[in-house]
């Protein structure tokens, strides 16, 4: 029962006015950017990273996590009303959410997604609170070889599961790892790949990279989008209630979606987008009327929505308990922790349990706030969709630039943003998904030092990765993932050729 006591202690600590204030700010901004298509959680979190320097560590992380959660709650709004996903993980919500809105039932859809989001998040949070400590205990026994294999698994999973072809994903990961090696080598002190630019001796600024690749390229891609057509329906509290049969079917869908989401979120490399897609497929498979999907079937909305929220909670498990971020947002979270002098990893939960439980308490409160924010204010969020993007994006660009400038007071970093913005746009033109790149960038340096350490311990014998049982298991999973994804790509091509 100690962990339950600790949880209550954490909740109590999270009730401090300062924490509550930053928490509210985070979830508010998160919902806002989630509702607005064209600004993602990644770009916003990297924008807020410099601001978080001035805040104590726990409130800072709670604020940033609030942005992430808020985006997961808010993202479905524009999917439902405009058929335009607010964030990538809400693309699936368009399929059945928008038909519901067309039938004049937008209020029901919006209300029910909030319920699904909240249920999914709460259960996910439960997993986070009760599994992280035991995973951390296992993590304490890990040596350099295990860590290296785990990071490799994270990178391989990120590139095979996120999107596109495996090889393209892998090449992005490797490119990210390379970009991570730019700067001073921590082991030998040699400057690598600095091209005689003094500003590069400290390496590429992570925030500048993230904002360029995600923020700026997003702006370029959507800057002459027309303003969304206004949601016509007045959304009142009375019109939100689902029918009895819908409520009953939703419960099952939420349970299935949450399990799927919690599992996928905790795995490195997966995350909310994959979770919501898989949950949709699962709902369709288990439904008695799969033909109704796509015409406003409520399970098709509930499953994915609870899945992506559950995944956004459980994705903190590997980050906090092992120090290995599973996706790009978690990579940012880890950077935020490190900036505040907290090294995420098994020692975090063992040595600073108060901090861990404070974070969990803060996450809990964020979700309660989001529930409160979303249900009465659905109408308000829906009306935000009327803001045209062409008013927003110049402001976004200015905020990105100044946000990056404020990190090191360096205009060089602003140029780095421009450079990586152009690169991010190039990648999107060539249909490369840049998410693995960011993960590779963060894990690259860690991976290199663990590889060196592991080989130093084993006196240069690479068999160390195979001789140690945990490491061997992870390596086998890596290999299986690669083989599976190559195989399924070939099979898909065959079936397509047969269809053509």
């Amino acid at each position, binding site marked *: 029962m100690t962990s339950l006591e600790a949880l209550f202690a954490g909740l109590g600590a999270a009730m401090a006015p300062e924490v509550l204030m930053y928490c509210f700010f985070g979830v508010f901004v998160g919902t806002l950017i989630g509702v607005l298509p064209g600004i993602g959680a990644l770009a916003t979190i990297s924008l807020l990273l410099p601001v978080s320097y001035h805040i104590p560590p726990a409130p800072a992380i709670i604020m940033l996590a609030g942005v992430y959660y808020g985006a997961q709650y808010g993202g479905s709004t524009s999917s439902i009303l405009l*058929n*335009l996903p607010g964030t990538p993980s809400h*693309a699936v919500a*368009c*399929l059945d959410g928008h038909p519901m809105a067309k039938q004049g039932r937008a209020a029901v859809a919006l209300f029910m997604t909030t319920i699904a989001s909240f249920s999914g998040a709460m259960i996910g949070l439960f997993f986070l609170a009760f599994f992280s400590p035991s995973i951390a205990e296992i993590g304490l026994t890990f040596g350099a070889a295990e860590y290296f294999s785990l990071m490799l698994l994270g990178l391989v999973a990120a590139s095979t599961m996120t*999107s596109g*072809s*495996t*090889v*393209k994903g*892998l*090449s992005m990961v*490797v490119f990210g790892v*390379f970009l991570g090696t730019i700067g001073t080598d921590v*082991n030998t002190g*040699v400057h*690598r790949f600095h091209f005689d630019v003094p*500003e590069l*001796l400290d390496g590429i600024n992570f925030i500048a990279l993230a904002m360029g690749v995600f923020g*700026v390229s*997003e*702006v*370029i891609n959507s*800057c*002459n989008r027309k303003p969304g057509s206004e949601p016509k329906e007045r959304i009142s509290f009375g019109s939100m209630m689902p029918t009895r049969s819908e409520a009953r079917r939703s419960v099952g869908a939420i349970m299935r979606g949450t399990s799927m989401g919690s599992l996928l979120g905790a795995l490195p490399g997966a995350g909310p*987008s994959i979770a*919501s*897609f898989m949950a949709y*497929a699962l709902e369709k498979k288990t439904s008695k009327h799969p033909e109704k999907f*796509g015409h406003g079937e409520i399970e098709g909305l509930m499953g994915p929505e609870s899945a992506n929220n559950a995944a956004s909670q459980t994705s903190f498990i590997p980050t906090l308990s092992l120090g290995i971020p599973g996706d790009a947002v978690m990579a940012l979270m880890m950077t935020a922790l490190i900036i505040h002098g907290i090294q995420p990893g098994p020692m975090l939960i063992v040595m600073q349990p108060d901090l861990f439980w404070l974070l969990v308490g803060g996450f809990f409160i964020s979700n309660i706030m989001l529930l409160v924010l979303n249900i009465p204010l659905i109408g308000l969020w829906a009306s935000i969709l009327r803001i*045209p993007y*062409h008013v927003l994006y*110049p*402001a976004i*660009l*200015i905020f990105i*630039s100044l946000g990056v*400038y*404020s990190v090191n*007071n*360096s*205009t060089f970093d*602003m*140029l780095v943003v*421009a450079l990586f*913005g152009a690169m991010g*746009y190039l990648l*999107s*033109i*060539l249909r490369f*998904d840049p998410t693995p790149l960011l993960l590779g960038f963060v894990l690259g340096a860690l991976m290199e030092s663990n*590889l*060196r350490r592991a*080989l130093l311990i084993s006196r*240069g014998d*690479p068999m160390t990765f195979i001789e140690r049982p945990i490491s061997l298991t992870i390596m086998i999973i890596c290999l299986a993932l690669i083989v599976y994804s190559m195989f*399924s790509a070939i099979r*898909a*091509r065959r079936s397509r050729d047969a269809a*053509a």
Partner: protein
Amino acid sequence: MKGCAIVCVVRSRRKAVDARGIGNAEDNNNEILERPLNTMPSHIRSIQCRERGSYRASSPCRSHDTHGMEGLDLTTTDHHDLIGGMLILAIGVFIIFYAQRYDTGTLTNMGPGYFPLAMGFLMSIFGLMVAIPAFFRAGEPIRVNWRNCLLVIGSLVFYALTLRTLGLLLSTAMAVLISSAASRVLTLKGRAVLVVCIVAVTYVVFILGLSMRLPVLPTVSLTGTMSITKLISEARLPGEPASESLLAGRAFGIGDEWLTDCYSQTCEGGK
């Protein structure tokens, strides 16, 4: 027979695009997924196609139908992957050559060059693996929105270069003017209002709110660009190996503790 099959593919692709309403950025108001296509996992894209009962359901690895309708005739090679793969290969080869100047070391005691070199080799291999199959595969022409790209990147570069000299207010206003030119919807009046609003918000948030160390007004007269170089050269202490941007920062009185901080870092780096 083969030609027939390709026509069939084109038709069904077009149908997929029609059904999903992905059109030209300018003239389609049902533009689901116009932005997110680039950020969305292709699994979801393909499920979307499947939902609309169209062809091309089960490919988890390739993402087509991103762009406008008129360019859907297939080219003989998949230029996206061909160019992408070649670029990856080029970067990989560059890394391999550039890494030669660093000590590789042994497996037991790796030098600084070992890991980057390995990454270079991996990238080259992956680049080839992306590019070679793409050469033998049909694809769509690449569409680039040069205008948006140039204006947005241009405004960022302009902002970075002028922020310290023109001051926050003027530089922000001009950067907004440049970037807002990418939108064809804005009227002249709307643009003016937008500039004023953004400059005001920036000032309130970053100067009043976060008390950022930045010149608000122009630090040099606009005609006297010579004085910048003069200021910079005067800021150099005797025998100091500081960089230009560092000195420029000092010349314009930006944060002394930051300067010392930055300076010590540069010096540490130089050792």
